């Protein structure tokens, strides 16, 4: 029997051929003219009746393209649904039917995909909806108050972390037929104004959340352009050293670039800390005809906002880094998978891609080298899980964002079944530096096992929240001090994000390196350092983390799908209700739930869904001794 490790959701090319025999049964609902126009704007006009167009005389004799051609475009399913959402404000049965017809996707599967994403609505709702962040940082810095002030209205919904923890409270106003608006430091008046249709501010404010750029710019390697160089100008980017690394890498050749990356010792900054050089080499050596490079910009770990700052403030660096990486591993196409809650980053990077293409820095003949590489942005639909690399593949391919069981690993069978490198934005932005300065020089930065500069996201109870760049080796206390110190008596620090752990004030001297955190049984995660004072309602914060994982579990495997629910329920019982039996029994139950999620879940979301809760109990943050 032919085995596929994640069944219906992972279809390799040969399977797709086999499946190309179905006839679609469509709903009787038909799309409105506006819905068809929205979808056609994304997919192009249908060329014949065979893909949902009007019947012409010639269709009676010739089937152009037909179902097979349509189904090969399944990867455009999410963009097509987003086109409907963006123009119409929801995905109606008629709209979904038309998308199904255009792409040859069974309507039940299209609905399964549409209903998977929080930013897509499958029931009619107001054309403008404000997503108000209620996550760990915002809820104690005005988010809860903002939600309360806005009151109960159909066009205001609570949201998971919007990646603006440095400027709480954050709001995303999602608007049909108009630009989405990203708000920070938002007041109820701001929200109601944009809900009433006020135009988006002409130019996005130059606040990138990088306090160090004010007085310590010369010390910065990753952030040095942010806030200083016009993110819309290729000329300014070049004038500040941009695209020197691409030129250098083309001279060196792919093998030499990979060698330098290996020598640099750089590990991934997305949470898994995998050696980047090994990943690149595996794909480069695969010999596969088709390979992909993916820049994972689905930054959604609560408390994380560093990649947003990089993309907003230095978008050309993202494009250049992807180009170097793509060429090095032998990919001709790269995808930037960008979370849907980042409209400003989207505009900036999209403009950079256009400018780079026009300047011959992307396309069939990059900088006259004869090498081809191009980048496409794919926008997420509001799903934290799609930051998991295999869920990300499924999302791009037009399937539900459910992770795949590994092995096979992405370097063997990733996007569309091809060898694929997935790197986080911050990780990739180290590449120009490695190319220009050499792997050995890079390896001298930081500690022997954690090389290079590192970004940390400081938010919560610090005086000056923001992204801070340090060399590996700085301690928790160093970073808090850089951010102006704690705003009150320190109770605990959330390290690594919602999937990380709380630590007590006794660990302020912990160096934030891969090796030191691992030795302490912790993880750097995505670089979150979020202190809480003794004023904070820690039980509320921990309940929010549990609620987050319940909301964001894809639902595929039992330990995570049900375990996150049972964890949240148990936590509510022992913090605001009465325990089932005794508190001791419920606390033990939480540990048992955590152990099963850690051991038996398919992916890292389930593996880490109980980590913060367990650490909070160990630190006594949720009341009483265990």
């Amino acid at each position, binding site marked *: *029997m032919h*085995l596929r*490790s*994640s*069944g*219906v959701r992972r279809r390799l090319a040969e399977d797709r051929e086999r499946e190309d*025999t*179905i006839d*679609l*049964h469509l*709903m*009787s609902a038909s799309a409105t003219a506006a819905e068809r126009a929205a979808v056609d704007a994304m997919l192009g006009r249908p060329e014949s009746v065979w893909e949902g167009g009007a019947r012409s005389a010639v269709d009676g004799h010739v089937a152009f393209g037909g179902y097979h051609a349509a189904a090969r475009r399944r990867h455009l399913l999410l963009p097509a649904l987003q086109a409907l959402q963006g123009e119409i404000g929801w995905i109606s*049965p008629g709209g*979904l039917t038309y998308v199904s017809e255009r792409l040859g996707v*069974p*309507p*039940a*599967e*299209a*609905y*399964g995909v549409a*209903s*998977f994403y*929080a930013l897509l*609505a499958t029931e009619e709702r107001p054309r403008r909806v404000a997503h108000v962040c209620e996550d760990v940082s915002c809820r104690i810095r005005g988010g809860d108050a903002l939600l309360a002030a806005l009151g109960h209205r159909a066009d205001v919904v609570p949201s*998971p972390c919007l990646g603006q923890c440095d400027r709480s409270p954050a709001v995303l106003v999602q608007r049909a037929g108009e630009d989405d608006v990203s708000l920070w430091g938002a007041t109820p008046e701001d929200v109601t104004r944009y809900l009433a249709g006020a135009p988006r501010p002409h130019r996005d404010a130059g606040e990138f959340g990088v306090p160090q750029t004010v007085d310590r710019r010369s010390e910065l390697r990753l952030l040095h352009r942010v806030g200083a160089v016009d993110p819309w100008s290729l000329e300014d980017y070049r004038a500040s050293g941009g695209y020197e690394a691409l030129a250098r890498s083309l001279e060196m050749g792919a093998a030499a670039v990979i060698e330098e990356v290996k020598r640099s010792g750089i590990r991934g900054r997305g949470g898994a800390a995998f050696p980047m050089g090994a990943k690149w080499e595996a794909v480069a050596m695969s010999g596969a005809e088709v390979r992909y490079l993916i820049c994972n910009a689905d930054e959604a770990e609560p408390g994380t906002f560093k990649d947003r700052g990089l993309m907003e403030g230095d978008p050309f660096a993202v494009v250049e880094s992807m180009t170097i990486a793509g060429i090095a591993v032998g990919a001709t196409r790269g995808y930037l998978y960008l979370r849907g809650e980042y409209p400003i980053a989207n505009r900036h990077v999209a403009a950079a891609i256009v400018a780079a293409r026009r300047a011959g820095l992307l396309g069939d003949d990059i900088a006259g080298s004869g090498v081809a590489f191009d980048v496409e942005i794919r926008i997420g639909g*509001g*799903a934290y899980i799609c930051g998991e690399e295999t869920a990300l593949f499924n999302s791009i391919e037009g399937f*539900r964002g459910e992770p795949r*069981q590994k092995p096979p690993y992405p370097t063997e069978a990733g996007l569309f079944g091809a060898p694929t490198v997935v790197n986080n934005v911050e990780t990739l932005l180290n590449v120009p530096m490695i190319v220009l300065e050499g792997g050995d020089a890079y390896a001298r930065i930081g500690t022997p096992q954690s090389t290079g500069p590192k970004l940390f996201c400081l938010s919560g109870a610090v005086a000056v929240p923001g992204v801070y760049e340090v060399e590996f080796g700085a301690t928790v206390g160093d970073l808090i001090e850089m951010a102006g110190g704690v705003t009150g008596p320190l109770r605990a620090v959330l390290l690594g994000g919602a999937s990380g752990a709380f630590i007590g004030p006794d660990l302020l001297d912990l160096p934030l390196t891969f090796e030191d955190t691992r030795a302490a049984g912790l993880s750097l995660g995505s670089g979150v350092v979020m202190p809480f004072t003794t004023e904070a309602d820690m039980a509320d914060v921990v309940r929010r983390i549990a609620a987050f994982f*319940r*909301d964001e*579990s*894809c*639902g*595929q*495997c*039992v*330990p995570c*799908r*049900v*375990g996150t*629910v*049972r964890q*949240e*329920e*148990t936590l*509510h*019982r022992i913090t605001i*209700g*009465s325990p*089932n039996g005794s508190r001791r029994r419920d606390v033990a*139950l939480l540990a048992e739930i955590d*152990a*099963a999620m*850690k*051991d*038996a879940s*398919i992916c890292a979301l389930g*593996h880490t869904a109980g980590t913060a809760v367990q650490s909070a109990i160990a630190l006594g943050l949720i009341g009483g001794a265990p």
Partner: protein
Amino acid sequence: MTASIEITIDGRSVGVAAGTTILGACRSIGADQPTLCYLENLTPVNTCRVCVVEVAGSRALVPACSRRVEQGMEVRTDTERVRHSRKMVYEFLASSVDLSLVDDATRDWMTRYGVDPDRFGPPAPPAGDRDRRNAGHHADPALDAAETVAQPVKVHDELYVRDYGKCILCYKCVEACGPDAQNTFAIAVAGRGFDARISTEFDVDLTQSACVYCGNCIGVCPTGALMFRSEFELRKAGVWDESAQTVTRTVCSYCGVGCNLELHVQDNRIVKVTSPLDHEVTSGHLCIKGRFGYDYVQELGDDLATTPIDVVLASVRGRDGAA
């Protein structure tokens, strides 16, 4: 001849063909493992996680149903970690789903692992909105009850009953409806997280969907969430009695393909039709005619109003007559 791979299972050396799964290797030496979402005639989706085992060198546990053996692999199937995860998976399911119709093997495994679903509190009452919940949002949990997938039964036609309060979301029906058998794609998983559910597009009735009533989804359902209407009505009337049923194997008479049928007969009435999973023609899958078109063989002058099954049959006929 495929190469032989040597592995150890709980200390025993085992040689199996390359490409064999850990589950296959376990079964080859009679060391069966529990499964729920696995079925011989479907592609493993490894979602239920009751078959997880410990593999040396792997940080998390590994699903035996889908992971293929590798040379020198050391597998342990009965460690504390394995027992704990399996127990928790069963408890998670038993506390959220009606498992009253699972098979005896599952019941035995649950007993063996000491499953106690009451630890999470009493089950919450059924919810009527599960088909309309939005991804990324949920109501605060009740403080005195464990949420469940309990919901009203979907009885929309004369052939199928869909009782999703019994659904463990094993994906088998989706696979059977889709690429593993029928290629109809009438149903898929919709929603997210605990609110994920098997659904047609916008939850339209099956009669409005692509469904062709092959019944292959019923054939693979491990929990009785999908059921023949006849079985459902007999169970409801309290007269379903498998001990009183005979199973007769025969060949479908409709066309020349040669599908084998298993006719489940109670009170001299066909109450259900299945096909053997290992049958070379069907792999357990049938079409609407073989699965449901059996009425003609028993319409031979019997008094149709004597047993409850006849009520069901009469109602099926009523539909056909109206058509």
